[in-house]
């Protein structure tokens, strides 16, 4: 469970990006986070990852108040949250397999576990045959699936997707959405920030809209904009 309780974030320059946000996301939900650029979507993601601290309020992930975590506890918190970005963030000099294995290596997973887990996750995202290729040999959609595999390889309970289809053409975007749905059906909670109105409209999932740091809409099976 993810819970924001009266969360506010004010930057040093006095800009209030989040104003008293209250939001609860249950385990296994699929939530779209929509709103114009600068509305506060990425701040919510950064707060969840503890890349920044809220000015006020508490944020609960699982059953822990993450605002109370000490610095050295942050890495362990992040292992429970997979992230994919608009720009994929793959290592160009590593193969598909190595990029995914890297996420396990750096949390000191046993090599046996790595050899077992990486092929499973690659077949889940449909890239078993491309394991030995380098990112620049892949299409954008395939690269995003590699980054999905990397995000999921340590079996996090939450997946955050920050504009995952932002750099992809419509066909590839739907590929990714299909994979995300599958991941969600296996029980992973998904929070996806997006501007892709057609995707939000067709998926019929929960939509949380944020504008000027305030949640203006929270609908089950909603559309991208309130009229839809």
């Amino acid at each position, binding site marked *: 469970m993810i819970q924001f309780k009266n969360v506010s974030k004010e930057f040093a320059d006095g800009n209030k990006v989040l104003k008293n946000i209250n939001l609860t996301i249950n385990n296994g939900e699929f939530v779209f986070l929509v709103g114009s650029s600068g509305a506060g979507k990425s701040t919510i993601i950064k707060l969840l990852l*503890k890349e920044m601290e809220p000015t006020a309020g508490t944020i609960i992930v699982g059953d822990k108040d993450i605002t109370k975590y000490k610095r050295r506890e942050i*890495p*362990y*918190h*992040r*292992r429970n949250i997979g992230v994919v970005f608009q720009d994929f963030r793959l*290592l160009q000099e590593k193969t598909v397999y190595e990029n995914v294995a890297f*996420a396990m290596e750096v949390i000191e997973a046993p090599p046996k576990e790595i050899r077992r887990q990486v092929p499973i996750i690659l077949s889940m995202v449909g890239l078993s045959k491309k394991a030995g290729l380098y990112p620049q040999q892949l299409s954008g959609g395939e690269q995003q699936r590699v980054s999905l595999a*990397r995000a999921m390889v340590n079996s996090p309970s939450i997946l955050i997707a920050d504009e995952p289809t932002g750099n992809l053409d419509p066909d590839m975007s739907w590929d990714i959405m299909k994979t995300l749905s599958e991941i969600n059906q296996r029980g992973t909670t998904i929070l996806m920030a997006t501007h892709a109105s057609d995707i939000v409209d067709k998926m019929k999932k929960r939509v949380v809209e944020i504008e000027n740091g305030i949640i203006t809409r929270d609908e089950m099976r909603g559309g991208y904009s309130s009229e839809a």
Partner: protein
Amino acid sequence: MKLRTGKFFIREGFRSLKRNSTMSAAAITSVIAALLVIGIFFIIVINIDYAATKLESQIEMMVYLEDGLSENIIDTMKTEIRSINGVKSVEFISKATALSNLEKNWGENSYLLEGLEGDNPLPDAFLITLSDPSDASGVALSVSSISNIEKVVYGKEELANLLNATYVMRMSSVVIILILLFISVFIIANTIKLTLYARRREIGIMKFVGATDWFVRMPFIIEGIVVGMIGAVVSTAILGAGYYYCSDLVKNQMIGFMSISLMPFNQIIISMVMLLLIVGVVIGAVGSLISVRKFIKV
């Protein structure tokens, strides 16, 4: 730390060394330069110490006697001196022996001494060797309280000068070494900063998939240590070879009245290797820690 993690760190450390080979070469060169100078100062200080102890152990005391003492009195004095604490041996040197010693020392110039046999101006003397040179002043005091003694002479000033020179040398070495250490640390920190910059994507990924701070830092620290170690090995090799050659060259050269020789190669080499290796590793580690600390904020 697990073994495989260690392997991961070492592999990554060497990989980035290779990737920024120009900058790494610059860093290694600066470490070599710094360690060479540090090593030279170490050699100088050690050898001054070595010469000082050698000289101290050679210290002898001459006790000049008043003229015209009878054999009886001389014998009593000898026994008296021998009973003083810290005196190892006492040898009587008569004025005649002293003159013939002088003639021997002067060699072909000894004709200048001809005719002195009749009216020998040299005094009778005792030659005292000491069991511990640091007792010299105490022994000198006890000896001069015995009657019929004209003068007690030992290399007091020479010893003091030498110890003084050692002190000055030590102090200036410390200052120079500190400056050099500072420069090397700075250069290593800059090298590592470039590596960090080149690998910022990788660092970012490591952080969001949940690598611990130490896990992210470690490869860079290893890289710094490797730079320091390579520098240490090269500079030890240069200094070792140089020292081996020089100590052979200098062996038993006379400078003035002092017989000079360098500390034997096999006595100095181990401490030199240890010193340079430790200093190299420490400046490498400290240098990379400085830049890593600034760069890797979660």
